[in-house]
Structures are given as C-alpha cells and as structure tokens.
C-alpha cells in the first residue's frame, strides 16, 4: 500500500509537470501545418571542384544563410542534408517564387573599390545597417511578419546605398573565381585575422586594385551577392606595388568566431559551385491550418471512441485504462514539447496511432486478468498475474515496433523521420503508462472495498 501511495504521488507530480510543460513550452508546428516553403537545394560539383566535401558544403550553406537572411523570414532554418544537399525551411513565406529565385543562383563574390570622398557616407550607412540588422534580429524572435518585411525593405535600401558608394571594378573585375582559399588564422598578438589566397591571375588583379587604394583611405569592399561583407583599408606601405604575391590578410578586431564566419563566407563566394532547387514544397498558411484542425478533430474523435469502447468492454479496468490513456496523451505531448519535436502531419498521425498502441498493452493485461479470474483466482492475484504474464508480450511487441521506427528514423527523410520519432516516443511512454499508471490505479482501486468486486472486472463470471 505504501508503495502504491508513493507511485500515486509520483504520477500526480508527473502530471502536474507535464501540464506545466504543455502550458509553458511552445508547440513547434512543421511547415506542412503552419504553412511555408521547404526547399531542398542540391549542391552540384563543377569542373574545378568535382567532389563536394564537407568544407564546400559548409561554405555553400553560409552563402545560403546570407541569402535566407536577405529574405526577411521569421525563424528560418538552414540545415545540411546528407553529403551534398541543404534544406531550407521558410515558415510563413509569402512569396515562394522569390525565395526560390534568390536561393537558386551561384554565389557572387566581388571585390570593389570605394568611390572617392565617400568615407563619411560609408560610415553613416554602415551604422544605419548595423542598427537595422540588430532590429531584424529582435523582430525575428517576435514573429511580427509585417514589421520584419518593413525592416527588410529598409535593409535592402541600406545595402543598395552602400553598394552605390563603390565602383564596379574595371577593367577586369576581381570575383570569387580567382579566390583559391580563405580562412581564419591566429595573430601573434593573440587575436584573429582572415587570410585570402588568390590564384596567379587573381593575385595580379588584386595587386593592381590595392595599389590604387593604398594610402588613400578608400576601402576595398568585399561583396557577396551584392551585400557588403567587409571593407578593409589598404595601408600606405603598399602604395608602390600593391599587395603582391597572391595572398593577403584582413585584420581587425576579429574574435575566433567572427574570423571563421568571414572565412566561410569568403570561401562560399569563391566556390563556383552551382546550386539547384531540387525540391520545393510550399503550403499556404490557411491550408496548413485546416489540416491541423481536421486532424486534431479526427484524433480527438478517435480517442473518444476508444475510451468509450474500453469502458463498455472492460468495465472498471477499462475506465482506469482510460485515465491512464489520458495521462499518456498528456505525457507524450509534454515530451514532444520538451524535446522540441516539430509536429508535422505524419507526426500527428504517429501520435494518434501510438494511442492505439497504448491501448493494446492495457487490452493484453485485462484479457489476462479475465482469464485468471475465470480460472478461479482471487481478484488481487488475477490483477497481479495479468500484469506479470502480459509483460513479455508487451515488451516483445513494442520492441518490434521500435525496430521499425529505428529503421525509419535512420534511413528516412524529413517527414518520415518525424513520424518515426513521434511513434517511437509514443511507444516508450505507452509502456510506462500501461505498466506503472494502470497498475498503480488498479491496485489502488482493489484496495477499496466498494470496488473490490470481480463483476466490475469481468461480467458473466461463472460463480465458483
């Protein structure tokens, strides 16, 4: 009895915790439910780079992140998939066409000279952009689409204004195709700098460019997809020959992270790797909402039918199983939120299905209990051995389902994985609720004299 009281307290605490989690944590809805565009971008090898490796993929990802930021979408997700694909999720995007167009091009890196006498303007514009970027960061977390779009428009104007302060490089533009490599490097003073290496031709153009700029105070603008990445000043000591030898360092107040970021961005621009949008799944916001609603209605409807069936067929244990089932739904939902599981349509299906599985364990136990009762055992012994005997069936059947889930999760793609994860989580939680909650409730119930009646467990029991 002591043990059951402790378990009851434990389950109650768990329920309270689950409710708190459900109230406090946000529900993450997949794009198929909240609407938005999901693009899969294939990185293709080029003539120069015949193999897309980890380094190249990271560089292309950085380029795509830049572009995604330029779209002004709240909470975008950019992830690498496998060895040569990048998945981009744009929740609530209003113009999938534009997104696809912007993301699908090859990166453009360009080095440009600042125009004469634009120093003050550049400083002012950079400050404006800094402010807008900080603001955008804040807005993204707020999710206010209209404000984000307005701020994005301002950012674009600011970027255009900055671009106007630089001249297009003439006669030969220095572009990413001449850049061999770029990356962070520690300085002797303990800081960080970014090294650039050009090929022979690039080295020449770079020397010419820097010769012109050296000592004038004009900066060398490095643009990725027409957005200024950095604008270093060329020191007066290079006025004679420019920076020769095909390599250069950009110094500044870099920390390791920022130096690394700039290195990746530069490499991304240096990569002449074409990208292609190979998959685009866009769901309108309202359409998504409708599917959530009808699926939730269906799920709840199905659940209610199951609850009714259980009471009608199994009587008191059925009612107890129902209680455990409701707890199961609460726990699983809380676990989804706690683990940050993104709910997709198949995910909801997996959840609803796992309700069916959660019932199965109870059905197994109660059928066993009835058998024992029919065999003439006492109520307490019957309930105990019902749990005991059913355990191996429950374990084996759930493990086989988990094996299938593992295969799906391991080998499946996005949607499939969501389904596998929710189903597996559900199976795990259902074992817990069936074996502990149902058991505790049942044992507590039969400790009350008014509930200790075999006919509440098994109708038409032959009188012994």
């Amino acid at each position, binding site marked *: 009895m002591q043990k059951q009281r402790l378990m009851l307290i434990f389950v109650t605490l768990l329920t309270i915790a689950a409710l708190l989690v459900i109230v406090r944590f946000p529900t993450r809805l997949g794009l198929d439910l909240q609407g938005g565009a999901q693009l899969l971008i294939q990185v293709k090898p080029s003539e120069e780079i015949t193999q897309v490796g980890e380094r190249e993929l990271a560089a292309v990802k950085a380029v795509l992140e830049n572009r995604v930021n330029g779209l002004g979408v709240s909470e975008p997700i950019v992830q690498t998939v496998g060895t040569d694909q990048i998945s981009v999720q744009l929740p609530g995007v209003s113009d999938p*066409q534009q997104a696809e167009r912007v993301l699908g091009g090859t990166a453009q890196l360009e080095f440009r000279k600042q125009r004469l006498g634009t120093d003050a303007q550049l400083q002012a514009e950079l400050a404006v952009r800094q402010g807008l970027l900080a603001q955008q960061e804040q807005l993204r977390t707020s999710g206010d689409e209209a404000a984000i779009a307005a701020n994005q428009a301002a950012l674009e104007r600011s970027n255009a204004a900055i671009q106007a302060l630089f001249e297009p490089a003439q006669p030969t533009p220095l572009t990413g195709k001449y850049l061999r490599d770029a990356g962070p490097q520690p300085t002797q003073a303990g800081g960080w700098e970014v090294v650039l290496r050009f090929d022979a031709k690039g080295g020449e153009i770079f020397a010419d460019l820097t010769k012109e700029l050296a000592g004038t105070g004009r900066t060398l603008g490095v643009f990725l997809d027409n957005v200024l990445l950095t604008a270093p000043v060329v020191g007066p000591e290079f006025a004679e020959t420019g920076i020769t030898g095909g390599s250069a360092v950009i110094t500044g107040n870099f920390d390791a992270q920022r130096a690394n970021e700039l290195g990746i961005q530069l490499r991304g621009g240096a990569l002449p790797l074409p990208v292609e949008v190979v998959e685009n799944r866009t769901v309108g916001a309202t359409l998504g909402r409708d599917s959530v609603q*009808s699926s939730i*209605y269906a799920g709840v409807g199905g659940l209610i039918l199951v609850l009714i069936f259980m009471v009608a067929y199994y009587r008191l244990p059925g009612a107890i199983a129902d209680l455990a089932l409701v707890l199961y739904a609460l726990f699983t939902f809380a676990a989804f939120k706690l683990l940050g599981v993104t709910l997709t349509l198949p995910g909801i299906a997996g959840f609803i*299905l796992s309700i069916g599985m959660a*019932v199965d364990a109870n059905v197994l136990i109660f059928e066993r209990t009835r058998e024992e009762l029919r065999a003439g055992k006492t109520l307490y012994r019957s309930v105990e051995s019902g749990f005991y005997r059913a355990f191996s069936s429950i374990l084996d059947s759930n493990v086989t389902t*988990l094996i299938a889930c593992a*295969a*799906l999760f391991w080998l499946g793609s996005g949607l*499939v994985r969501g389904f596998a994860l929710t189903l597996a989580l559900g199976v795990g939680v259902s074992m817990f609720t069936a074996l502990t909650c149902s058991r505790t409730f049942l044992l507590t119930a039969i400790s009350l004299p008014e509930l200790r009646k075999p006919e509440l467990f098994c109708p038409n029991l032959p009188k012994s």
Partner: protein
Amino acid sequence: MKLHVIQQRRFWWMISLAVILSGLIAMAISWQQFGAPLRPSLDFVGGTRLQLERDCTQPNTCQQPIDLAKVRQVVAAQGLSAGNVQLLGAERQGVSIRTTTLTVDQRTALQSALDAELGPFDPLRTQIDTVGPVIGRQLLVSGLMALIVAFAGIIAYLTLRFQFDYAFFAIVALFHDVLVTAGVFAILGLTAGVEVDSLFIVALLTIVGFSVNDTVVIYDRVRETIKQNPTGKIDAIVDASVNQTLARSINTTLTTTLPLLAILLFGGATLKFFALALIIGFIAGAYSSIFIASTLLAWWRERSEAPEGGQSVSTPQSEGESS
C-alpha cells in the same frame, strides 16, 4: 466463439492467396500502364503539382465552378502538356495541376495566367510541390532500405526471443500484410486513380512494425503453452493459443483502427489514404497472425518434429534454409 484454425488452414490460406494474387495481377497491369507496380505520385517520379483555390472572400468570384476546359486551355497556352488536371472540393473552386518539373519562371507564368483567367486565387490556400526525379529515387531507395533493415531487425529480435522458425513465419506473415496492402492500392490505382506517395512507404513500415505485434502475442502464448505442456501436440497448442488471444486480437485491431477510421473520414486530404493503407494493413496483420503465421508454424513443426512431439528442436537455422 471458437476457431479451428488448424483444421481449416487450407481454406484460410486460399483466401490470402486469392487476395494476394489479384493484387499481383493489378500490379502487373499497373506496370504496363505506369511502369511501376503502383500508380506513383509526384514523390517518386518527380514533377510539379500546383494546387490552387479561389479566393471566395471577394464579391462575385465563386459563383460558378472552375471550368476544367478553360484550365486546360491556359495550361496549353503556356506550352505545357495538360496531362493531369483535376478540380478539387465540393464546390469545385479548387484545381490541381500536375506537370513535368517546372522552373520558377515557368511556374510563375502559369500561376499568373491562371490567376488572370480564372482567379483570383488565394495565395494562403496555395500548395506547390516540386520534386526532382533524383529526389523521388532517393525516397524510394531509402524507403526500401528502411523496409529491409526493419525486416532484418525483426528477424534478429524474434530469433533471439523465440526461435528462427518463429521469426521466419512472422516475416512470411509480414510479407503477406505488405502484399495485401500494396495489392489493394494497386487495384485502387487502376480503378480510382489513387496514387502512392512517400507516406505510403511510411504506412508499409508502420504495418510491418505493428502487425508483427499480433503475431508476437500469439507466439508468446504458444511458447508459454509449450512450456506448461511440453508433450502436447503442436496443432492443439496453436489452436488453443489463437483462441485464448482472439479477444485481444479483435479488440486491439478495433482500438487501433477506430482513430484511423476517424482520420479517414474527417482528417485532412493528405492523411486520408495514409489512414486507409494502415487500416487495410492492420486488418491484414490481424488476419495473418491468426490464420497464416500460426498455422504455418504448426504445419512446419508438425512436419519436422518427431512423432512423440516434445521440444526436441534441432538446429533451427537449417530448418529455415530448407523451407
């Protein structure tokens, strides 16, 4: 109610064979028509599907259903083959157009042309799916791989927990369930134009993980009964085990299919056929556990066991190979 599964096993086997055979015939016909055993959706063959719904909040927009011929005209005017155009919804205010893979510009042109001719369409109710052919193949390959890995995992686990011949017949039952489900969808593909998408592969895998449950529960009972009664005849043991677990089999199938039935009837369009596949698979799963896996096991043990019976099972591995 008491089932004599062993006595009537040939009858049950015939039913399954008939269902599977008709499915296989449907798959063969599908193969000739679509080059695939089931009518493949965009997910597997690649292409673009555009689903648009009219914006009915504005006055004078949704008085008449969309004119299918006009949609075809617009599509053709864009230089695209109007292969698969369907009207959607009870009011016929939605349209779904499936074409070869469109570039962004082609798609934009088509969308604005449709909007001008038949619109205005509601961008919030628009669905665009573009899948490259490579993706479709990846999906199919990864799906089949997952299926094979799941099979292998289940065989390994069941061999560990039971014996190899149990595991083998559980897998036979699984093939049965997968074939029945796929067969029904092949027939639906031919008669009702139902396409299978990546969710169908998910459904098959779920059926695999799920319907083996039933088999395991019966096996568990068989094993337990053998333990209590080591000299009993296997036929009688299997018969008794099936009957002891029958109520559970029926009830569980009922409680799992009830929510699915709810989704089939009231859920969103995407999940409808997913739910249908699962319902068919689960019913086939319950059937195959009772009438296929257990009867085959009894038949096999009856043949291989010494007449005195008992638990003298020799090298289960070689049994499996010889079957």
